[in-house]
């Protein structure tokens, strides 16, 4: 048998393969690492995997949610352990192969220098990775796992246990009448909201940038400063201000502006349709400055020669706009424009701070202007429907990832074309 086969086989117990390759120190390091891994995490792994499979068997001794959390931590720790284990196998194979080919195995000194030299990127990105695992990956895995349990108000610790139910919650979203109708109502409005609000803010921003950028316009600096103001004021403040302005009974829009024109007050907050109109208008107001600024940058980078050449060829203003300005803006801004759509799809603040997703809809947990994210928030915070909220989160993530991947492929093809 060849060394390259024997060494990794022996390394099934970490370190033995290295001993076989006569790399004593390294073998010892692997052996100690493996042993301390099991000493340190043995209990956690044991308990964690048991909990992950059963979610507890006895009340009040077992807390399903703790067990689930421990189980996921055990999974993450195991992933790290397996990584090191894989490294150990690979190392044994590599040095076995060197021996087969009659090369000397790598010396301890050169490995050490290699580790220091190659370790630099790991050293400087390590803290970020650790933070990501703790603050992002673990919570997301936990949320996703909840979608496959029946965890809600009636299955919560310490009085009750939760259990794995597989895809039942997902099935219920589509089979239980009230959930299905709420889901599709909310989804439909989420899509409309995303498309209309984003298109409004993008077209407003682009249009204003072109208007201000006309050569003859004076006070450019003044107008630009004013137009950036909605972006400069913190968004949550503006939304709350608008909530006051639009208020049915004391808001200035009904009492001052509409009254001034002799119009009847409009039920902005209590009528679903008007609330939606108000929200879209507000997002236009809040969102256009960002597009405005970026478009202005793009416009200023278009070389003047292009326009001069077009003028000499007798092109009209509209021809110049259609054939020079618009394509330039669209190519440069495609990624930013798509980000606006994904941003609005998840734009929780404006929906929730304006009037809490209201007005309330009879028999439904979602209000008339709730989008998916604000509905999930309410299900979690107000009605304790954790597993339903988690299942919806997964559906939403799939949706967003789908769009983002599509965007990613598009921008990549842009790069290849360039």
């Amino acid at each position, binding site marked *: 048998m060849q060394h390259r086969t024997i060494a990794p086989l022996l390394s099934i117990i970490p370190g033995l393969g290295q001993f076989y390759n006569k790399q004593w120190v390294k073998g010892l390091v692997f052996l100690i690492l493996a042993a301390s891994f099991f000493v340190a995490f043995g209990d956690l792994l044991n308990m964690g995997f048991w909990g992950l499979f059963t979610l507890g068997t006895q009340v009040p001794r077992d807390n399903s949610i703790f067990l689930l959390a421990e189980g996921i931590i055990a999974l993450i720790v195991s992933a790290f352990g397996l990584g090191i284990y894989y490294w150990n196998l690979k190392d044994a194979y590599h040095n076995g192969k060197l021996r087969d080919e009659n090369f000397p195995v790598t010396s301890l000194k050169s490995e050490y220098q290699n580790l220091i030299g190659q370790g630099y990127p790991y050293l400087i990105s390590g803290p970020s990775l650790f*933070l990501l695992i703790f603050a992002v990956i673990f919570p997301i895995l936990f949320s996703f796992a909840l979608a496959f349990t029946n965890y809600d108000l009636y299955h919560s610790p310490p009085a009750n246990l939760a259990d794995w139910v597989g895809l039942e919650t997902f099935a219920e979203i589509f089979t239980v009448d009230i959930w299905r109708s709420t889901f599709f109502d909310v989804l439909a409005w989420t899509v409309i909201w995303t498309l209309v609000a984003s298109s409004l803010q993008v077209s407003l921003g682009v249009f204003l940038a072109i208007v201000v950028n006309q050569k003859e316009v004076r006070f450019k600096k003044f107008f630009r400063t004013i137009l950036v103001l909605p972006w400069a004021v913190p968004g949550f403040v503006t939304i709350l201000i608008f909530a006051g302005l639009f208020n049915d009974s004391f808001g200035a829009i009904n009492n001052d502006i509409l009254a001034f024109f002799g119009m009847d007050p409009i039920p902005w907050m209590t009528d679903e349709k008007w609330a939606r109109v108000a929200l879209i208008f507000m997002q236009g107001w809040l969102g256009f400055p960002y597009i405005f600024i970026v478009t202005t940058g793009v416009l200023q980078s278009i070389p003047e020669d292009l326009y001069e050449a077009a003028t000499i060829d007798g092109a009209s203003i509209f021809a110049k706009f259609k054939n020079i300005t618009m394509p330039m803006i669209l190519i440069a801004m495609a990624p930013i424009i798509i980000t606006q759509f994904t941003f609005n799809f998840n734009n929780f603040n404006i929906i929730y701070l304006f009037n809490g997703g209201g007005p309330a809809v009879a028999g439904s947990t979602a209000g008339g202007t709730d989008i998916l994210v604000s509905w999930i928030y309410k299900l979690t915070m107000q009605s304790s429907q954790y597993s339903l909220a988690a299942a919806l989160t997964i559906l939403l993530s799939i949706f967003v990832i789908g769009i983002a*991947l599509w965007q*990613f492929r598009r921008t990549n093809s842009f790069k290849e074309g360039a």
Partner: protein
Amino acid sequence: MQTTMKTNRILRLFFTYAFLLFVTVLIIYPLLWTVGASFNPGNSLISTSIIPENPTLDHYKELFAGKESLQYGKWYWNSLKISIFTMLGTMITVSFTAFAFSRFRFKGRKNALMLFLLLQMIPQFAALIALFVLAQILGMMNSHWLLILLYIGGQIPMNTYLMKGYMDSIPMDLDESAKIDGASNTRIFWQIILPLSRPMLAVVAMNGFTGPLGDFVLSSVILRTPDSYTLPIGLYKLVNDVMGASYTTFAAGAILISIPIAITFLLLQKQFVSGLTAGGTKG
């Protein structure tokens, strides 16, 4: 021919200015209305006018009167603290990580980049349920440091991508010649790469600061007692607890946070606009 072109031009300019003026009014009106409301006597908005007849500073005083449910100064301090630490943490972690991704070819780099890309797509919202459940059970409530760590973690994927893209555009020759002169990796980072990435660093700083400042979702899950609130939660509760009854006080609070932020923003605008456009065109 000449005259029609001239009238055309005048007409176009007329409509341009009329439109810009209209938009200016649309932008200024809500802001001025808030300023007016903050100086109006009484709690009711029915009598509010943009220029109050009997202006009063009562609402500003009330913000700092030290009521149990209205600890404006505390909220202000909490918000600033959380935003500034998140900003610093994000800038540090993101620039180091982006440097590693941009300048080194190490094992696992491709996988890590894929992971970052994936995490950038999943909204941090997906973690909400976990945080709510765990915060309740583990008693991690009201901890600002927990919140800061969560924010930094949430900022890392997207901003690392932006920063890496920007660093990729800095020519490799620069570091190579520095390396020949004997500069260490860390020195190349501090003295060459980081100064050249300043426009994108400004964008990252802005994201890191404004993200937590405007966040309502995560902070409302973790912060539950009035003395731990940040401004979004505090002001939201102030407006909604007794709708309409404290709107003028809210207006005063809104002014005090908006003016310094808006001024800083307008002053620093130049710094990050070039980074934004670069990020936009590079995708």
